[in-house]
């Protein structure tokens, strides 16, 4: 008995020191408020200020997240070299995750790593859809820099990454199914949780949280321009499988052969417009109560979970080009829905971890009460528990909320593009030139950012 008691005391002391150390961490402040200066400057069109404000954020604890956001700012500024530098740093972290994910189930074990503490203390690993978006962004940057060979490599990395994620998640699912013997809690067990923010047809219609129709369509586009129809066709096909409604109207696999046999010299440009608007949804930490134990020993433990705000009303987005029949499809990528879907898929694990953690804390508190008659120590732990208990509200916030694309063969010359997002509208003079051309427009607040490149 004495051994058990001293063992418990040892564990309890170690955990206590650990817990108190962690409560001192600054990274517990809300991610959204940390980023507010940046997103405000962004929607005012002051990118210099946004980059400055972002520089104040510590890059030590969350290298991945820091560089994801920073890359996006440089990208919008048109500073492709800096954007690429940041994103490649972020990409290195993701590729090291990938090589682990390819190997075995050690990551499955690691995923339960924050059992004792808190999800937010975990190093930010990025959501699956962010990893895919990052690869897509890198490909886009190479394209803007007119570096087709590197763009091809990046495109290949994009669909390879999707395959790795798919494989890993299915293994993880099997692992979890095999492990689950106790009662499974679901969101239904927490009436306080705003479950409706994770329920909509947009969310359940997604095949999974990470597959991205734009990345596949872009793969199709790049392979097509490189004269590789056998790789272009599956790109278009996959994109159309993911978003049949949005992409059926756009040029795709069906008309690929006709486009491939297009004359080497003509006066038209294969124009691809990517129109993005808004910012990725904000996540916050909310507190829900969980009843642990039975009868007289039952204790309510504060348990925090990440939640999204209620979805915004979908804004009407439009894009037309004067004197042309440029076809636009909004809603090719719905990052809002993907984010919610990712959280929904992760929720069972978050709950399981939270319950384990709460159980550990209750056990610690009981142990402390038992060891220390004054009850002072137990009170200390209870306090630490409340403070450390904050859900992970981090995400790549500067991503757009929604992405649409337009594509058509356009006769060369200066054209006027009319853009509309909700109540805002914007018109843009574009010189359509080259054999193919890529035009990127991003709307944030009152600002319209434009990147473009054409190839001969």
């Amino acid at each position, binding site marked *: 008995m004495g*051994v058990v008691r*001293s*063992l418990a*005391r*040892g*564990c309890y*002391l*170690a*955990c206590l020191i650990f817990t108190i150390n962690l409560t001192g961490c600054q990274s517990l402040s809300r991610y959204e408020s940390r980023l507010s200066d940046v997103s405000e400057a962004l929607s005012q069109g002051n990118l210099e200020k946004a980059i400055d404000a972002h520089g104040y954020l510590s890059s030590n604890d969350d290298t991945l997240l820091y560089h994801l956001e920073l890359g996006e700012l440089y990208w919008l500024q048109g500073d492709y070299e800096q954007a690429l530098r940041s994103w490649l740093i972020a990409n290195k972290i993701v590729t090291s995750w990938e090589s682990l994910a390819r*190997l*075995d189930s*050690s990551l499955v*074990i*690691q995923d339960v790593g924050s059992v004792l503490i808190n999800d937010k203390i975990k190093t930010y690993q990025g959501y699956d859809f962010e990893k895919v978006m990052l690869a897509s962004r890198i490909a886009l940057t190479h394209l803007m820099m007119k570096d087709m060979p590197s763009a091809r490599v990046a495109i*290949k990395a994009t*669909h390879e990454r999707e*395959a790795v994620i798919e*494989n890993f998640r299915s293994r993880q699912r099997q692992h979890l199914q095999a492990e689950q013997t106790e009662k499974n809690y679901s969101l239904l067990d927490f009436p306080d949780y705003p479950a409706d923010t994770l329920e909509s047809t947009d969310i359940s219609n997604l095949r999974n949280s990470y597959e991205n129709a734009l990345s596949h369509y872009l*793969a199709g586009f790049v392979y097509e321009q490189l*004269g*590789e*129809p*056998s*790789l272009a*066709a*599956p*790109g278009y*096909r*996959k994109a159309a*499988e993911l978003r049949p409604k949005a992409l059926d109207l756009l040029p795709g696999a069906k008309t690929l052969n006709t486009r491939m046999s297009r004359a080497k010299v003509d006066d038209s440009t294969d124009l691809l417009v990517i129109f993005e608007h808004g910012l990725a949804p904000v996540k916050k930490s909310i507190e829900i109560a969980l009843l642990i134990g039975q009868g007289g020993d039952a204790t309510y433990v504060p348990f925090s979970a990440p939640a999204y705000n209620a979805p915004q009303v979908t804004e009407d987005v439009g894009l037309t080009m004067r004197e042309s029949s440029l076809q636009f499809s909004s809603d090719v990528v719905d990052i809002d829905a993907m984010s919610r879907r990712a959280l929904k898929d992760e929720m069972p694990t978050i709950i399981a971890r939270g319950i384990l953690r709460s159980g550990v804390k209750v056990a610690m508190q009981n142990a402390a009460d038992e060891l220390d008659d004054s009850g002072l120590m137990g009170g200390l732990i209870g306090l630490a528990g409340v403070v450390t208990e904050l859900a992970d509200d981090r995400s790549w916030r500067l991503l757009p909320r929604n992405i649409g694309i337009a594509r058509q063969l356009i006769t060369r010359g200066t054209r006027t593009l009319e853009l509309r997002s909700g109540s805002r509208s914007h018109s843009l003079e574009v010189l359509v030139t080259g054999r193919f051309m890529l035009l990127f427009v991003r709307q944030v607040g009152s600002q319209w950012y434009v990147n473009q490149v054409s190839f001969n």
Partner: protein
Amino acid sequence: MLKTAYFPLVALLMVVSVIVGCSKSVRYGDPKGVETVTIEFGSTDLQSIAEQMTRSILTSPLVVEGKRPLITVQDVENLTSEYIDTRGITDSIRTELARSGVVRFVVDEDAMAQQISELDRQADDEYYDQEVAAPKGEMVGAAYRLEGNIRSIVKQNSDIRDVYYKVNLQVWDIRTGILEWSDETEIRKVLE
């Protein structure tokens, strides 16, 4: 007391060593070995398709008459939703047929641009001796063209993923439009 205080530390170290400790080593493998790393289209599929198709062409009447026909190769059309670089298949088929020495190949569509630029370059009499330079207008057109496609049927439930590939190749007489040879090969892979 001192010993038990170390317990959490030891446990932590054990977990860390399990995660970090299984470092992987590198070795060379057999490029011709059976590859079953993932269910996606892989090297074994490519090699066996190319081999089977080449051997089939070799026994067709097109070749056995010993006339060394001129063939141009078109890409195998990818009709699947998987990123398969079918040029790998056509390249392998062409190489193996060329090795057998029974057929000859002429410049295909993809290599035409390079061929033209080389002819243009040699036509420049400032740098090239025109007596031995390759003149324009003497390229020989193919008598046959090789084309084909790859299709797949993918079925999946929570336990099993089943992929079926079918590759179909044809050789067409360009002058007459007659189908001179056609063959197909199937591959089935199951992931459980």
